[in-house]
């Protein structure tokens, strides 16, 4: 299991940030991804593999419309 | 149309072009008020000559239609119409729509050729483009 924004989510071996975003349906154009406290740059989302038991923050950047 | 062409390998950063331009148009020898600016980089070719190539991208972003081409194809700012919003500065792909904090409106090369006559190495010259 991993935690995504405080919620328990099932972990899959080899799941990348991109896979996770698809799974969560996180399609927003501006998201900051932190895995275990470290920012993962957007260029690496397709390759960076999330480890089991990771604490993931998908910080959507929107505070107004 | 005739625009200022550049051969950066020949530039020695002497600044004669900058002095010529800023003195003529703004009555001061101030490279930051020159519509052609040269500077050094640590990448090839070593020196960069920044001057408008009259691409015209600025024309379509101007909210007051202050920018247009004259009969010779040169892109000009109508100083009376310009409201100093700097949208053109922001959109310029070559960073050659210049601005200075003391000036209300931006400025650019209008291909007057004065600088090309002062360059000691012929690094800048007038050239014909379509």
């Amino acid at each position, binding site marked *: 299991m991993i935690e995504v*924004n405080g919620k328990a989510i099932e972990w899959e071996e080899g799941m990348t940030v991109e896979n996770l975003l698809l799974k969560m*349906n996180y399609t927003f154009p501006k998201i900051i991804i932190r895995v275990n406290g470290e920012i993962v740059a957007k260029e690496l989302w397709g390759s960076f593999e999330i480890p089991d038991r990771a604490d993931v923050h998908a*910080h959507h950047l929107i*505070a*107004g419309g | 149309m005739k625009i200022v062409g550049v051969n950066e390998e020949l530039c020695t950063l002497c600044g004669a072009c900058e002095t010529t331009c800023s003195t003529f148009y703004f009555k001061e020898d101030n490279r930051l008020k020159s519509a052609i600016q040269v500077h050094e980089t640590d990448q090839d070719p070593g020196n960069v000559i920044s001057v408008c190539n009259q691409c015209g991208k600025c024309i379509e972003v101007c909210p007051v239609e202050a920018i247009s081409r004259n009969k010779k194809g040169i892109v000009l700012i109508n100083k009376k119409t310009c409201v*100093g919003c*700097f949208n053109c500065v922001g959109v310029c792909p070559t960073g050659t729509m210049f601005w200075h*904090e003391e000036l209300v409106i931006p400025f650019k090369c209008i291909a007057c050729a004065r600088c090309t006559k002062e360059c000691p190495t012929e690094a800048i010259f007038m050239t014909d483009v379509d």
Partner: protein
Amino acid sequence: MNSSVEKMRASRKELARYDYKPASIERGYSGKTLYINISDQTIKSKDVTDQMKDIFIGGKGFGLWYLWNAVQPETKWNDPENEIVISSGPVGGITQYPGSGKSLVVTLSPLTNSVMDSNVGGFFGPYLKFSGWDALEIQGKAEKDIVILIDGDKGTVTIEEIDFQPGASHLISEQLTEMLAENEKDKMHISVVSSGSGAEHTNVGILNFSFYDLRRKAARMKQAGRGGTGTVFRDKKIAALAVKYSSLTGRSNNPADPAKISKTGVKITREINKFDNEQFRMRQIGTANLMTPMNDYDLLPVHNFKYGSHPDAVKISSDVLRDRFTQNMPDGCWIGCSLSCCKAVDNFELKSGPFKGEKVIVDGPEYENAAGLGSNCGIFDPDYVIEANFYCDTYGLDTISTGTMIAFTMECYENNIINKEITGGLELNFGNAAAAMELIHQMGRGEGFGLIVGQGVRRMKQIFAEEYGADPSFLQDIGMENKGLEYSQYQAKESLAQQGGYAMTNKGPQHDEAWLIFMDMVNNQLPSFEKKAEALHYFPMFRTWFGLQGLCKLPWNDIVPEGNAQTDSPEKIPEHVQNYVDLFNAVTGKNIDKEEMIRQSERVYNFQRIFNLRLGFGTREHDAAPYRALGPVTVEEYESRAERYDKQLEEDVGINPAGLSIEEKIKAMRKYREERYETLLNVVYKRRGWTENGIPRPEFVRELGIDFPEVMEVINKYI
């Protein structure tokens, strides 16, 4: 068109004239405001005091101050004493930074019967200021339709009768612009404020503020949309306002530090050029870029806020709307705005109504219009959304309120609360675009069922209960209004913070003050009550600030600078907050910091709360929310999120959902959520410096420096 403009020119009859020497602008202020009484045709100049600048700043602050002094506690929106005040703000009118042309309109609202404020783009506010007036106050009522013209070039203000056909705002904007312009280029120096026939027949009238588009050769319009400001305007028999000012420059505000303004402006314009296409695509799609994400995150209002998404929402997705907008046009609603988000559909052929067959420019749709008129009504047809947008604009109807009003009637219709006999034959099922369009035309014409719908959700609840025997508590649950104003188009149901963000507002549930759904629901950044309270203090105060200055808040966070992710509080966009501090100081020559910025807002915000109290509102009971805004009212709503709700019952409420009927589960969930909301009110009131009844505490009011005797008199009644 020319012959009607000729007719207009020939018919001009001057009722009053005021010649003046336009004050020079110093550090963002002309130092004068214009007072006009259209009952007796008084026109006079008033001074802006230092106290006004220090305490009220400008914009909404000036509007509230003037309105407070103009009305009594018993004054109604349609009494002559009610004023319409329009003001931009000290930073308004700069050309270098995006979003610098906003004005605030303040008046008493026919929907809420309390003080209303509405922000709007367009050229009017800045041109008004540069013509010599930091604000315009209009009091009284005219006997016949009048036009007020302010010529900042010549230094004249006139009240005139002019023969033109009111009723269609887009024509008024066009024709009055034509009448006042010497030539095509001159049209850009003119801005017209007008409304339409819908504002005469409904409580949701808007004010359209024009801005001339040189490339389209057309007067386009932005809207002061919320709260019925246009209804007040037409009730006063004002047909239009117009201002003309030809000498705009990048230094018109005579700022203290023009270099700083230019530097900051160039910086953000370069940022927009670099990042907008990969971020929110404001220049391509405007606010409609939110349509797709809101649906993806189950936050799009569907069927009167019952649901958050719909399989057909893809038909009015962000990209579908992008393909209808003309691209690569400088679409700023104030000159120089590089965020350029005011998109338009060009050459749109209307299929219904008085302009059927004509090809028009449609200003929009914005997100609110597509979500309100479209998905909230179950209509997923982009042509409908675009046409409804056009007619609401020209009739002068608030698209947000209209969307929520129609959605409400549709749910009532589907529940047999109203029927075809009552609706005059309109089959108001969700999704029936033809019926919805006809309803809009009825509101524009002032006939049929449109006359009832146009009174707003609060009145409809009363009418349906009293005249059609509807269950008032069900109507209360599904009628999405608070304080009398309709909710704007975001699903607050699962975000406790946003529930407060909507219902704890001064004016009613407009997302102007707070937009916390993502921070709360998706990012889970506000897990505790304390964090929610902090957010419901900071963001409403921060967002209020824009309305004091003449600024648009979209460039604050609809473009994000490099390095923002690494900051302590990325959702505040700290670099942009600093930009605004710098801009204010650079214009005014003052030296505020981020803390003082919030304090500026607190003064005006609390003054507005106390103004509400003075008018008989403003206490805790008025911050109550309809249950549809807090949780699932109906069986179908519960079932649409059953897994999530069952889990919440188990984990948060401590009730095992197994073996409970769905009605029992809804009831248990409701008790939990309603209690939670009350707790939220308690913590937020405390954080804001208010009592448990929502009254600003005297010591806090003194600290803010708004403890005028008449203010303390109001508070002391409640303490």
